[in-house]
């Protein structure tokens, strides 16, 4: 997998994930994902280029979202594809980590 981090205005951090978020893929980005988000309070995770999500990937998303929430911040997922959205719904995660379909919606959702 690939991971990129971009600082936007108003203290918003955008994390772009790409690839297959299975055991191997998640291991490839896990450390960087935690590192990039370590002190952040407003994080948008761009899921557009993630074409597969397994429970190990959901676990990583949950742990990062929890850590951000604990310091009073918020993480949202932006634009996961149909298959990935379906997995998030089936796992019951879409009610815990908001899924945003437009980038403006994502920016508003993480605004402190």
């Amino acid at each position, binding site marked *: 997998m690939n991971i990129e981090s971009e600082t936007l205005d108003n203290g918003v951090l955008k994390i772009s994930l790409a690839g297959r978020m299975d*055991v*191997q893929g998640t291991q490839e980005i896990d450390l960087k994902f935690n590192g990039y988000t370590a002190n952040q309070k407003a994080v948008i995770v761009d899921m557009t280029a993630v074409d597969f999500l*397994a*429970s190990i990937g959901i676990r990583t998303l*949950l742990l990062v979202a*929890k850590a951000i929430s604990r310091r009073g911040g918020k993480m949202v997922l932006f634009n996961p594809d149909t*298959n990935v959205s379906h997995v998030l719904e089936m*796992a*019951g995660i879409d009610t815990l980590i908001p899924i945003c379909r437009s980038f403006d919606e994502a920016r508003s959702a993480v605004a402190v």
Partner: protein
Amino acid sequence: MPVERLIINNDVSELRRVTDWLRASAAASALPAEILHKLDVCANEALINIISYAYEDTRRHEITVELNATPHGASLVIRDDGKPFDLLAAPATAAPASLEEAAVGGLGIRLIRRLATRLYYRRENGVNVLSLETERTLQPSDA
């Protein structure tokens, strides 16, 4: 569609090979993308469970995966010689109500139960046999 069969070792590095095999088999049989995706998730989750928890020794074990066409989708039959484990009898974890209380365990089994239309388990001559049937449920326009 003839029965397709793949044998892997109990090693997580084999999971990508399973996905490649599923993709090739699905293409050869013109399985819909939605079915392929459900099979891919279910196979990943079931196999990682077996590889992580089924064996009490450190020896190499073979796991057999079979793909069959069904009238409305496809089924996977997974056979392992690990300790008996009935996924259907495993305790169900409720969907978490908040981020703070969200447990990070049990997600794989929940995904299999919700993505598979039908699940069957039997123990046969010292082997776990798990059958997973998948069907299309999304609207064609969602695929």
